[in-house]
């Protein structure tokens, strides 16, 4: 029996708690803005919470997606560190709960004049009234609850099945095939939520007059590539602690390839959305890019493209750079930060117009979510052994060559 246990070091725990406290302090500080009566300060309070809670929920749900995709494709490469996506996936409910509280506060908690979601009260706006059969409070609440509920359930279930497999009789593949079936079911659910409805409701409806048919794909690409970067960071962290001794450069190379390939995939979708709107030049569509590209958000617009396309394609292109722990960790952090900026550019311009900020409140809330991520995921990781001792692909993952 192979055992490999991770114990949460006190330093990591302290870091997590400090970051979480910074987040709480920023939230308390943000209340001052909420109570100040300034319209834009109120919008800022809610939009930052929305951006961060949705971003961290999406990147953690990507862990369930990669488990399901690799599970269905019988991918052996992920098994060496599959406990990491399992631990992140099993904590999707935490971020789901936070996101649900934030989303419901915005939709139901704020009065008549909603600074974030204008569609809540159309006030005679013909476009919004036309969309009201789909874009209304009831549908929003229903879709949000179903989405977060299903993701949380699948995340916990995937980890539970994997743990049950550890103590199952040797050479029994019963649980393995159950996992394959559940992977298929999850991909179906994920296609109907993350890849279509969820980003419409939570993000695209901020600019309720505007729509883009591939918006959800683009958001999915954004969250998936950051999700892979997140898995890589945790894996390298565990490796540095002396755990996961089977994980070697071959496995890093795989994660590096995912970050490289999906950065380009993200760019492809981002550009496909941008170019068609730029070329068609229809006023109701170009307003979305007018404020982002030529208005007050121009800096973030271009920074987004440099961080998420230029840097990954140049730095991660060669094989040695994907097999170097320093480069992949550096790029993983860049990608997560870059896509956080991407979500910033998606959410802020609608409610805040030119009154944007990027200082203590925005960064503080992000720190809080990072702290929460560190605390819950490390706690889950420490609960069980890190090797999937009974997985049929264990040998394949040990001798894996990328």
């Amino acid at each position, binding site marked *: 029996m192979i055992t490999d246990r991770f114990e949460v070091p006190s330093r990591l725990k302290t870091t997590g708690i400090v970051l979480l406290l910074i987040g709480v302090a920023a939230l308390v500080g943000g209340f001052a803005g909420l109570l100040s009566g300034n319209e834009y300060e109120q919008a800022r309070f809610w939009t930052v919470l929305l951006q961060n809670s949705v971003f961290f929920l999406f990147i953690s749900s990507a862990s369930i997606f990669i488990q399901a995709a690799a599970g269905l494709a019988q991918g052996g490469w992920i098994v060496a560190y599959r406990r990491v996506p399992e631990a992140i996936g099993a904590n999707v409910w935490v971020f789901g709960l936070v996101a649900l509280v934030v989303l419901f506060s915005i939709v139901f908690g704020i009065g008549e004049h909603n600074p974030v979601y204008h569609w809540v009260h159309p006030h005679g706006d013909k476009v919004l009234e036309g969309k009201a059969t789909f874009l209304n409070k009831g549908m929003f609440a229903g879709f949000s609850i179903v989405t977060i509920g299903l993701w949380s359930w699948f995340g916990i279930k995937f980890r539970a099945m994997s743990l049950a497999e550890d103590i199952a009789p040797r050479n029994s593949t019963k649980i393995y095939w159950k996992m394959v079936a559940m992977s298929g079911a999850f991909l179906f659910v994920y296609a109907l939520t993350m890849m279509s409805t969820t980003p419409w409701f939570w993000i695209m409806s901020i600019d309720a007059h505007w729509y883009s048919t591939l918006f959800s794909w683009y958001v999915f690409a954004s969250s998936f590539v950051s999700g892979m970067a997140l898995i890589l960071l945790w894996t390298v962290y565990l490796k540095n602690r002396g755990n996961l001794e089977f994980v070697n450069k071959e496995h890093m190379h795989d994660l590096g390839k995912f970050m490289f390939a999906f950065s380009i995939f993200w760019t492809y979708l981002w*550009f496909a959305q941008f*170019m068609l709107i730029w*070329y068609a*030049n229809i006023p109701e569509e170009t307003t979305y890019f007018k404020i982002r590209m030529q208005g007050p958000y121009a800096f973030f617009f271009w920074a987004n493209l440099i961080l998420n396309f230029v840097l990954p394609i140049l730095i991660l*292109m060669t*094989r040695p750079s994907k097999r170097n722990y320093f480069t992949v960790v550096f790029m993983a952090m860049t990608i997560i930060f870059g896509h956080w900026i991407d979500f910033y550019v998606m959410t802020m311009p609608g409610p805040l117009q030119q009154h944007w900020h990027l200082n203590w409140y925005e960064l503080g809330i992000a720190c809080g979510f990072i702290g929460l991520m560190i605390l819950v995921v490390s706690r889950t990781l420490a609960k069980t052994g890190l090797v999937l001792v009974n997985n049929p692909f264990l040998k394949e993952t040990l001798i894996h060559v990328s």
Partner: protein
Amino acid sequence: MAVKKFAVACYDDEAVLFPAVDKVRNSGYKLHDVYTPFPVHGLDVALGQKETDLHIAGFCYGITGTATALGFMSWIFTKDWSINYGGKPFFALPAFIPITFELTVMFAAVGMVLTYCYLNQIMPGVKKHVFHPRQSDDLFVIVMEITDPASEGEIVDFLKTTGAVETDVQIAEEGWWYGWWHKEEAYQNQKQLA
């Protein structure tokens, strides 16, 4: 290309082939190549082959494609034949990107296919000596070059000890050639003379 003398050994099992490759590499005799009916995993590592620079060639072809497309379109639309399309600027970079992308892919793909063919000496209409007809059927074939005529018997005996089911000595053209009749004839004559 040169006509040389080769010792040929056939194996009927991967489990025999890998130790044989190890022994051959350590023997000091010159290994020409190993022919297998299917891609054998790990054989490249066992043979100590380095990774090719094909991908670097691919990158160069790709960059050439990017430069060609961007340069050509920019020249046409800004200098040679400027046309106002729906109020867009003459240098309409976003509109050039899809074509640039396609040409990058095409240059890289075509260039790499040709380079790959050149490196492996395969091309429509060219011929290469086949050491054993069953090398594309069910036998693994190790081919040694006999550099010193005196060591011929020694090499064949050595190959037999590595578990070869069949051994042979052949004089053959080392590289590839166009399959023209006079070359073919000269080659056959040389083979008969030997």
